[in-house]
């Protein structure tokens, strides 16, 4: 299976089929038992343990349960992704407000996650993934915990990000979203890719 630069790919399949595992292989949370993974020219077989943090900095990750820090504000949560890389204060001040604006949370910088709706929290999580300007954005069921309206907002945001040149990998259960997106769909079943369509529709 090969994914081009700037592609927008949906990964679908029943629960336990291996969608999340596929994404976790990319972030090295899981290791393949066989086969080869190459992202942006980096062969994962050649990675050592201490390369993993640096690999994860190059791939933006969005989680179903957001994984935000409850005692940090929106701004601090996003800035945190830069802080751990040792980025300068200047770069943080420059980049963070921009991504917050990009995801549409301008004016909520000083709110805490508990003061936000589910959709807004997911936007923070996306902003945190984007602030390091990754080439690849991996989103594991980003809409899984959201109501349809917010889910759609998130999908629109992901499309916008894709348009700006970031490769997006999305796993989802949501039939409507897959059908409306009308993009490449990879279907996974029992740990195998069973279908790969350039303009796919949801069918499991």
């Amino acid at each position, binding site marked *: 299976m090969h994914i081009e630069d700037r592609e927008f790919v949906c990964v679908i399949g029943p629960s336990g089929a291996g969608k999340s595992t596929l994404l976790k292989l990319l*972030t090295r*949370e899981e290791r393949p038992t066989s086969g080869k993974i190459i992202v942006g020219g980096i062969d994962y077989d050649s990675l050592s*343990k*201490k390369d*993993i*943090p*640096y*690999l*994860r*900095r190059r791939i933006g*990750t969005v*989680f179903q349960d957001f*994984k*935000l*820090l409850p005692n940090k504000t929106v701004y601090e949560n996003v800035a*945190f*992704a830069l*802080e*751990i*890389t*040792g*980025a*300068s*204060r200047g770069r943080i001040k420059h980049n963070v407000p921009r991504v917050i604006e990009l995801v549409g949370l301008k004016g909520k910088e000083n709110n805490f996650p508990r003061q936000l709706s589910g959709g807004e929290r997911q936007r923070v999580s996306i902003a*945190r*993934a984007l602030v390091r300007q990754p080439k690849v954005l991996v989103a594991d069921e980003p809409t899984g915990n959201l109501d349809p309206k917010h889910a759609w907002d998130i999908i629109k945001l992901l499309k916008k990000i894709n348009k700006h040149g970031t490769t997006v990998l999305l796993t989802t259960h949501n039939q409507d979203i897959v059908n409306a997106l009308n993009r490449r769909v990879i279907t996974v079943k029992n740990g195998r890719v069973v279908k790969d369509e350039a303009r796919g529709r949801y069918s499991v």
Partner: protein
Amino acid sequence: MMNRIRRSFVSFGRVGKSGFVNFFRNWWLSIAATSIMLVTLLIISGTFLFNQAISDTLDDLSKDLTVSVYIQDDTTEEQQLQLKSEIESDENVTKVTFTSKAQAKRDYLEENEFSPELIEAVGIVGGDTFPASFEAQLNDLTASDGFKRIIEQDKYSDVVESYSEERLNTAREFGEIQKSIVNVGLVIGGIFTGISMLIIFNTIRMAIFTRRDEIRMMKLIGATKNFIRAPFLFESSLYGIISGSLTTAIIYFGLKNIGDVASTVTLSGIKQLVADNILVGGAAIVLIGVIIGVISSLLAMARHLRLNT
């Protein structure tokens, strides 16, 4: 290169901030850890200072040590002079004086002027009981063995009745007390070091536990192992820094305000020692605290912080 230095500088600041936040987040545990560490460091440094004070006292005792050599009544003047010259030939002996029988009696009566029963006793036993003696001043307690060898020679068995070992014995007793108190100090110090380590271990374990979501998230978004570990190391070092500084302050001001405990123990030496070396000594105490803290938190992290996924 400059960039790397700047980066580590920036990261150090962030790690420090995070460590401080941890310290205050579980402040009751931090206070417990700091106080037990304070007690530990006080015991360790107290043992050290006590050892030093006893050594000083021993030095004082051995300075100008006077040993009286009592002469048998029926010795000739010749024998006495021979003994005297041989004693004087010992390089540790700085001065030898002779006290005659009559002088010894006068001294005794003078000393016990206000104890009529003791003077009465002299009358009962007879005026001749006080032996003549040589008072030899030794400049070194440790070299007293050579002196003993001279007066214990066979040829003087008829001349020397006995010699006073009072101060020799006092010195020996002090030496024994020193040994046992230092031993007790080391054992208690060891026990408290163990307790400190247990408490810090648990404090860091709690901190890891309260931050487990944050740590998991940090790993997923690409924080390095050291960046995750460093705040815990900083936090545990902080216990050492705070309690070490407090220990130093307590010792410094405590010794300043303490009088000589009785006059048996010499404190002027350690007072001087502490006053002269307060910075180096304080740094050493802080370092001991930091080492105890860092080792315990490394153990806690090895046990409870899983970073290998």
